[in-house]
Structures are given as C-alpha cells and as structure tokens.
C-alpha cells in the first residue's frame, strides 16, 4: 500500500485518510494476540478430559499472554509518530471472487489497540476471577475454553481490517455468548435465554450482512480502507442506508432499542460471563462498529441522528427498567443497556462524541465489570441467590466486595473525579452541544438519565449492602477467595482512577486522535459549569432518594403491588410481551400453517392430486374393460367410426 502523500494536518482532519502501513516489529505479531486464546480454546475443547487439570490455568495464562503482547504492541505504536500508528497485518487471501476480494487481515491502530487492551486486561482478570468462581463446576474446562474462544473472537472483531473479518468476530462473540449464556443449559430457561440472545443478534447480523452487500455493490470492496476512503463518492441515500443497516447490526449486538430484549435474559450465564461479555466488552461492539465506521456516519447526518436517537431511547429505557428490577444481575444488565445507550448517543453525535464514547466504553468496562464481579461475589456468598430483596446488610459480611462494589457504584453514578464522572459528564456536555433541537433533547435525556442512574444504582447498592439483613434462613454469607477478590480490587481501582489517568492527561484523546481526528471546538447550549452542576445535583437527588427508600426504610421481602409504571419497568417495559404477541406467536402460527399447507396443499395437490386424478381416470377407463366381447367390439367399431368421422370432418 502506498503511503498517502498528504500533509499530516489534512490527514488528521480527515481521519479516514490515514493509511495503514504494513506492520513491522511487534505489531506484525498481532495475529498472535488472537491466536493465543484461540489456541487455548481449541486445546481445551479437543483435548478433552486430559486437560481438565491444567486447562483453566492454561487458558488464563494464554489470555494474559495476549494482554502482554497487546501492551507491547501499544508500546511499539507509542514509539511511532502519531500518523504512523496505523498498521496492517495481512494474513491470507480469504475470500476472493470477481470483484470481491477479502484478505484475512488485521488493522492495528490506536482504536483497535485500545479495545485490545480493554478486552485482554478485563478478560484476563475475569479469567482469574473465574478460577475461583467456577472452582467447583464439573465443566470448568469447557467454561474456560468458551471464555478463551470469546476473547479470541472479540479480538478478531476489533482487530479486523475489513467488515467481513469484523463480522467473523462479530458472530464469533455471538457464538461464545450463546455458549456461555447456555452454559448451565440443564435449566431449560437458560437454554432458551441463550437461543434468544443468538437469534436476536442474528437479526442485527442480518442487517450487517445487507450492509456489507450494499458496500460491495457501492464501493466494490469491504475493507475499511477502501470503503471509508471512497465513502465520499457515494450518494447521500446510499450512505444513509448503509449507516442505518450498520446501526441495526450494532443494536443487536449492543442490546439497543429495539433489539434489547435478550440482554436481561442473558444474565442466565455464569456471572463472570455477564461481567466480561454482557457488560465490559461484547455489548460494546456496536459502539465500536459505529465508531469504526465514522467515515460513513460523518457524511450522513441522518443515520447519525438515528444512532443518537437509538442511544437516547435505550439510555432511558435501561435506566427505567433498572429502577424496578429486584434481580441484582438483571438490574446491572439494565444499567449496562443504559450506559451503552450513552455511548451510542455519543457516537451518534459525530466527531465531538467519538472519543467520549470510547472513553466511557473503557471506564464502563472497568466499573461495570467490577460491579458484576461484585455481584458474583455476593451471589457466591448468598448461595447463588440473586433477589436483592433477600439481601441487605452485607457490607459487614463481605467487606472487600462491598468496597470494590462501592468504587464501581461511585463511578457509575458519576461521583466527581471517579472514572465515570469524567467519561459520562463529557457525553452529557457533548449532547448539549448537538445542533438545534437535538442539543436540548439529547442533553436533557442524558441529564435525566444520569439522575435515574444515580437512583437505581444506589437502590441496588443499598438494597444489597445496607439496610436490614433479609436473608433466607440457610444463608451464611462469607467473603470470596482471593482469586475472586483480587480482580475485583484491580477493577475497583480502575473505576476510581482510570478517568483521571486517561483524560486530564490527554492520554486517551492523544492516542485516539489519529483515528477520530481532533474534536472541533463546539458551542454548548448551556455553560459547562451549569451542566456539571446539574449533573451533580441530579446525582445527589438520585442517591438521596434511593437512600431514603432502600437504605433507611424497610425493604419488603416480596415485591409489593405497584403502579402500572413500576410493573411495566419490572417487565422490561413489556418487551417480551410485545415480541411474544407480535413476533413469536404470528411466527409460530405461520410455521404451523405452512406445515399444514405443505402436507395438505403442496404435497396433496402435487402428488396426491395427480395420483388421485390418474387413478380415477383409470377407474373410469377400465369400466370399458367389462369382459363382454360385444362391448369390446362396440369399442372398436366406435373407434373406427370416430376415426372415419374425424377424417370426414377434416376433409
């Protein structure tokens, strides 16, 4: 590939113009980042029982290996000039026919490496955590194999240099998610949850496939470089359609409205899975996709607006649902949805939001993973109970968990100077700077969301760790082993300080600038300080309200009868009822109808009809074969007369 001969300044203003050079040095080993966990998965799955003993440790080690390698690559990139940090690793010619030419190739650039670090770091921590969490599970080996598989797939997703390779990872993480949600599939509900996740994701994937088809038809290629490079030459309509299709794909993976229904059920998987896949990494893939496709979205405000709208809706949706959930994991899942809604909103805002979206994504990866692990630890302590109404007053029993969870809680509610505060406030600020009515709408939604987040997260926190103990009789809470608590501690530290490390130092924005370009100075609708103050006030209000209701007051052990709004929120705003009523039932009826039609109409008409027709014709004709000679003679004579008559008529 030829290096672009444009000035650096232009290149930065038009980030798609950054051309990846062939990778050298450590970066050339980027494939190994993927290969290590993939190898782990393969070994553990194929190796069988032989690997039972050392398998989990091996998987963990390989995951850490990926992290180390990723870090080394980042170091190498850091040593290069900002505009040279984009490198490609070409592996092999994968699919080539006609115009289509897709190499299995990796793109090592700041954006992908940011994800690599997040994935491998959090992922490895969760491997470690799982060593403790899954210690007594008979299928531990399989679990670690799946985890490794997930890490590998997720790395393929972010390292891909084309949409098609990305799609491999995209579906790969879907598969891993399916396998892990259904890990305890002896419970039929869990198996259904796994199916639901996969199928809903497939709807998004369908859109993504069509998006790729559209790209190929438009640009004649699927690699990021060509597609993004020639995006400008496509028509507005085309770009908008592609943008919307990509958004639909992102919605599926990131559980955004209207494809959000699977995430709550996905909590059926073991808690480390929820932490890794359904909080920290996989579900943020949609955000990555939109961010990666910025060259397209930059040119199509309509599609971008759609992204922002979806983000805004989901943000509120998740937040509202989160207020009503009593299942600790489902509440966290709702919160995840909501937080990803923030990220979507941010990427939907365009160049001003990309960096904040990724920033929030990273911090969220830490604090949400931390909280999920905390939740896992709590469940560990409470014999796998998840109903927060039967928790309470755990702060004394599981102190480390309480503290680490508290760090995550502070981060997510946006307590000043925690990681979440840095990332979320910037998104809210950016939202207010969107043009025209959008600024007001998105800004206020984001602001409101922040308040609700503070409420429901505090509700969760207080219900679990404070108030009166509402435990069931046979529960004797105990702190988790070190393998579990250490990862929680690491993540807790990250939740508190990561923001301060990354943002004020300009580390992250500097790192990502070659990809996203320099964020233009923007006019906010409200003064910055006003926004920050209102966010803070709302947060305090939310926490306070939660304290009053769930910290100070008695929490009923059984969910009380509630208003329509609460019931709606408990039932995820009737998403499943809607799907059941308008999708599954008509679908099932269609299937049954077709089954009947296939038997009664197609088969019966084609085969049965023909054979019946022939048989009845035969039965009519054979009546003439009545055994009477004279009748036969009559037939003959009739034939002769008919023939002569026919000739006579013809002539």
């Amino acid at each position, binding site marked *: 590939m030829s290096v672009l001969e444009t000035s650096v300044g232009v290149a930065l203003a038009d980030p798609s113009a950054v051309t990846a050079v062939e990778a050298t040095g450590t970066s050339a080993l980027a494939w190994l980042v993927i290969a290590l966990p993939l190898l782990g998965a393969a070994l553990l799955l194929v190796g069988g029982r032989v690997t039972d003993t050392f398998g989990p440790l091996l998987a963990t080690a390989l995951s850490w290996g990926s992290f180390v390698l990723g870090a080394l690559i980042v170091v190498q990139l850091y040593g290069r000039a900002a505009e040279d940090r984009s490198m490609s690793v070409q592996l092999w010619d994968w699919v080539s026919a006609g115009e289509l030419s897709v190499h299995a190739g990796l793109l090592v650039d700041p954006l992908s490496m940011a994800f690599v670090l997040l994935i491998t770091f959090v992922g490895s921590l969760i491997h470690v955590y799982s060593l403790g969490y899954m210690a007594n599970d008979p299928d531990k080996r399989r679990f670690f194999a799946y985890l490794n598989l997930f890490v590998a797939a997720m790395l393929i997703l972010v390292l891909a240099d084309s949409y098609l390779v990305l799609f491999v990872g995209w579906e790969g993480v879907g598969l891993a998610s399916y396998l892990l949600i259904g890990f305890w599939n002896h419970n039929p509900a869990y198996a259904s949850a796994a199916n639901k996740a996969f199928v809903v994701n497939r709807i998004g994937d369908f859109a993504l496939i069509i998006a790729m088809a559209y790209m190929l038809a438009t640009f004649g290629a699927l690699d990021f470089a060509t597609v993004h490079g020639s995006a400008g030459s496509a028509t507005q309509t085309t770009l908008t359609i592609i943008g919307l299709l990509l958004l639909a794909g992102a919605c599926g993976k990131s559980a955004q409205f209207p494809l959000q229904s699977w995430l709550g059920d996905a909590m059926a998987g073991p808690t480390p899975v929820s932490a890794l896949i359904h909080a920290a990494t996989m579900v943020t893939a949609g955000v990555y996709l939109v961010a990666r496709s910025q060259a397209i979205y930059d040119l199509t405000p309509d599609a971008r607006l759609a992204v922002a709208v979806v983000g805004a809706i989901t943000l509120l949706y998740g937040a509202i649902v989160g207020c009503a959930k009593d299942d600790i994991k489902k509440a966290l899942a709702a919160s995840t949805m909501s937080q990803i809604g923030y990220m979507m909103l941010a990427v939907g805002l365009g160049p001003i939001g990309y960096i904040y979206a990724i920033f929030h994504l990273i911090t969220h990866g830490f604090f949400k993973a931390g909280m999920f692990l905390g939740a896992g630890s709590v469940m560990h302590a409470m014999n796998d109970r998840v109903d927060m109404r039967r928790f309470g007053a755990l702060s004394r029993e599981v102190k480390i968990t309480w503290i680490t969870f508290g760090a995550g809680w502070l981060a997510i509610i946006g307590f000043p100077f925690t990681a979440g505060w840095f990332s979320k406030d910037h998104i809210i600020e950016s939202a207010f700077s969107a043009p025209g009515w959008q600024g007001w709408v998105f800004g206020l939604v984001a602001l409101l969301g922040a308040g609700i987040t503070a409420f429901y997260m505090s509700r969760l926190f207080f219900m679990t760790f404070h108030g009166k103990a509402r435990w069931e009789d046979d529960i004797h809470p105990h702190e988790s082993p070190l393998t579990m608590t250490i990862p929680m501690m690491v993540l807790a530290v990250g939740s508190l300080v990561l923001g301060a490390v990354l943002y004020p130092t300009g580390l992250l924005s500097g790192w990502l600038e070659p990809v996203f370009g320099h964020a233009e100075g923007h006019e906010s609708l409200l003064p910055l300080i006003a926004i920050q103050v209102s966010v803070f006030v709302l947060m305090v209000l939310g926490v306070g309200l939660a304290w009053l209701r769930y910290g100070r007051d008695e929490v009923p052990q059984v969910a009380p009868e509630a208003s329509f709004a609460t019931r709606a929120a408990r039932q995820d705003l009737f998403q499943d009822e809607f799907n059941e009523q308008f999708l599954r039932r008509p679908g099932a009826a269609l299937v049954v109808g077709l089954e009947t039609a296939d038997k009664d109409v197609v088969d019966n008409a084609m085969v049965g009809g023909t054979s019946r027709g022939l048989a009845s014709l035969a039965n009519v004709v*054979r*009546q003439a*074969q*009545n*055994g*009477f*000679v*004279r009748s036969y*003679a*009559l037939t003959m*004579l009739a034939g002769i007369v008919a023939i002569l008559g026919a000739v006579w008529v013809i002539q």
Partner: protein
Amino acid sequence: MNLSAYIYLATLLFALGALVVLLRRNTIIVFMGVELMLNACNLALITFARMHGTLDGQVYALFVMVVAAAEVVVGLAIIMSIYRARRSASVDDANLLKL
C-alpha cells in the same frame, strides 16, 4: 344397372354383419356376422373387379373364401370347446376376464 349399387350393397352387408356381431349373443351367430362381413368384402371385390375390368378381384375373392373357411374351422373348434365346458353358447357368459 350402376355397379356402384353393388358397392353400396356390399357396404350395407358389411354393416349388417358388424351389427350382428354387436347385437347377437349366441357365439355362433356372432361368428356368422363376421362371415357376413367377409362375404360383403367378396361382393365388393367382385364388383371392383368388374369396374376395373380385371380378374384380380375375383381371384382375391377366392382366396378370401379359403381363408374364411379356415377361420370357420378354428372358430368352431374354439366355440365347441367352450360350449362343452360351459354348456352355454352366449358370448356374454364368457366374461371372467375383465377390468
């Protein structure tokens, strides 16, 4: 007299013979109907021979008579054997083979 009248007569006889085959039940009579048809042919042959002014037709008629005689032999033999077995000469009784 116009020779074509004989042709019409022959045709009529032929048709009569066919009708006999169709209408009568007695096997012998049915067979007679066939003989009538053959003889109608003979009449036509002779008439055509006359028309064409050749003797071919008459010779043909002789052949046909011989054949008819042979047919009678075989036919009667078959009819006899079936009559002896069934004690019936009705063609309609021979209808075990059907459909």
